């Protein structure tokens, strides 16, 4: 999508800030997952952590990654861009590793995390999201 009218202005730089234009849609999707994953992990850990400690701890970890990515993408500046890059990379790795493990070793994942089966229970959005996030970060790389 080159030359969008919504080309963001970030204090003189010709690169769009992560929180402008289409980036704002991305941030909303991240925020929805951040809230969803955090609440889900909180309920799982508060009510039945003993049943499946590993998946629930993983749920909590995923929640932290989503929250961090959301905040970092919503902020401007080189440092936040880096935080966003790390978050999205961890997220990408997480969904691939957990996705693969959950397919091959079902016993280790008795209850679903967002990343189980590559996020199939969430319409594969968890798999697509970090890809779009990383592409957006490449486009908004600080000069």
């Amino acid at each position, binding site marked *: 999508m080159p030359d969008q*009218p*919504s080309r*963001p202005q970030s204090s003189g730089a010709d690169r769009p800030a992560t929180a402008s*234009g*289409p980036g*704002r*849609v991305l941030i909303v999707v991240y925020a*929805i997952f951040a809230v969803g994953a955090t*609440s889900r992990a909180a309920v799982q850990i508060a009510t039945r952590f003993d049943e499946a400690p590993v998946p629930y701890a993983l749920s909590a970890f995923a929640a932290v990654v989503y929250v961090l990515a959301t905040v970092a993408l919503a902020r401007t500046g080189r440092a936040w861009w880096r935080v966003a890059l790390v978050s999205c990379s961890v997220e990408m790795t997480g969904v691939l590793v957990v996705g693969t493990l959950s397919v091959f070793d079902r016993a280790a994942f008795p209850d679903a995390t967002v990343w189980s089966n590559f996020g199939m229970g969430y319409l594969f959005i968890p798999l697509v999201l970090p890809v779009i996030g990383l592409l957006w970060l490449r486009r908004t790389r600080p000069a």
Partner: protein
Amino acid sequence: MITGYAIAVSACAAGVAIWAFVLVVLHREPEKPLLMGVGAIEALLAVQAVISVVMLIGGGEPGSMLTFLAYLVGSLLVLPLGTVWALAERTRSSTAILGVLCLTIPVLLLRMVEVWGGASA
């Protein structure tokens, strides 16, 4: 919850989402009619919340009260908070954000119906 009502609200929300995405394709910023559509969905959700609370007081027992209440509160907050974020920078992307927000409503209501029907998570 009244399942039929939840389905009706979901259908309306999906309709507003489609409307928003059509406007995105037409390169339009969010205009008053669309915002009123989002407001109408919020009103339907408020009625849904009242119905649910009345039924809870009347002895309704969802699979997990905590989860159900969390979804209930969430279903009321998504549209107002998201709309504030969408309108902070008015572009075609704001319209897309409104579409995404409306799409979350059927998902939330579906999960609520499941939990109301006895699902524990």
